[in-house]
């Protein structure tokens, strides 16, 4: 049930139509990708209301400056998700900073830090089966910092601290893990 105007139009064509202030094109882009953007923001933020704000911002930003998406540099979906993740992480980090300030001010009602158990985190992410299988092919020492960074919004330093591992080790494991994850997703029939 897409917008009748833009059924069958490619993402690249839709993005180009935004430059002509075509609101139907934005509606169709939202129809195609609003769900993943929202779902990613919700996972990172763990707060539906803030996730709504992030999802909204991602699409209104695209509307305001569609030229910032360059089709030569990847898919529109990947670009939107990258923006959604960056925004969400900004919110998470400013929350963390606020929490730190609160703790320094000695406030008792400071929110506790998120759960450190990566297994539990993965379980509650409610990922698609093929994504679970792909993640499960990674050794835990590669998977855990990726999950903490991507879905938890942690910096690699915070992830290393959380995991009790040296930062340099975590760095190289993240890179190795992302490569392995890509191959595993391809084996699952997903072409990233």
């Amino acid at each position, binding site marked *: *049930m*897409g*917008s009748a105007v833009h059924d069958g139009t490619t993402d690249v064509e839709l993005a180009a139509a935004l430059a002509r*202030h075509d*609101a139907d094109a*934005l*509606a*169709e882009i*939202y*129809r195609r990708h*609003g*769900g*993943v953007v*929202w*779902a*990613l923001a919700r*996972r990172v933020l763990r707060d539906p*209301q*803030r996730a*709504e*704000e992030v*999802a*909204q*911002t991602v*699409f*209104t930003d695209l509307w*305001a400056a569609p030229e910032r998406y360059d089709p030569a*540099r*990847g*898919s529109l*979906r*990947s670009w939107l*998700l*990258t923006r959604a993740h*960056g*925004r969400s*992480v*900004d919110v998470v*980090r*400013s929350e963390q900073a*606020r929490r730190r300030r609160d703790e320094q001010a000695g406030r008792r009602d400071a929110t506790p830090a998120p759960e450190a158990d990566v297994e539990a985190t993965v379980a509650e*992410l409610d*990922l*698609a089966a093929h*994504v679970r299988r792909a*993640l499960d092919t990674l050794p835990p020492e590669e998977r855990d910092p*990726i999950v903490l*960074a*991507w879905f938890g*919004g942690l*910096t*690699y330093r915070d*992830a290393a601290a959380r995991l009790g591992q040296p930062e340099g080790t975590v*760095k190289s494991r*993240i*890179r190795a893990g*992302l490569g392995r994850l*890509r191959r595993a*997703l391809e084996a699952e029939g997903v072409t*990233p």
Partner: protein
Amino acid sequence: MTPVHPTDDLALYALDALEGAEREAVEAHLASCPACAAEVEEHQATLAALATDEAPPPAVWQRIAAGIGATGIPTPLPVTSSAPAAPPPTAPVAAGPTHLRPRSRDGRPRWALIGAVAAAALVVGGAVGVVLGNTRDEPDDLAELAAAALDDPDAGVATLATGDGRPAARVVVDEGTGYVLVDDLPALGPGETYQLWKLGGDVPVSLGVIGDGRAGVAVVGVPAGTTDMALSTEPAGGSPAPTGDIVATGTF
């Protein structure tokens, strides 16, 4: 030692796992290294493939549409939504504009009331009734979000005043989302809209189309660094550059 290509850092960058100087160093490198930029894009595509698809709450599109002045477009049904499309509900009877800005005795806006009335007032716009119909059970309507933003001590607030100094509207920016709260603006005719502009650059930049002033709250995109703003009247749908009269201005 910094490697020629910061390979490990590219993965961290794609994960948004770098901060501060480390992040800036990667960005500087990416600007001049297409090979590394391509590697980041590959990582981003890998991470994008982890995405789960879920139907977002209808309020998300409602706010996007309000922010771009396209409230006539009904909520696009997400591709993943397995539920059959509900028939569009009948638009409720519109409230009269005289009830638009209820205030309590101390003069402070009564946000809950504004929310309800603003939602009804939006229906005056026409097809937006479909959108609102989908979100009747959404507790977090625009007015509540704006009220929460207003209460946040970290939010930036600017009052837009008319030439004779009368407050006409406020702009609140919280966590990157901007809201225009209409305090005292004359309602416009069907062919017109209010539009908010960022001033101070070479040319005014549109921050969003506000609508005809009947809705109490609108969403706008206010980039960091915005200080001076102006509100103008424009043809419905908004203009790429201001054409109408400036009705109010304000500064963060």
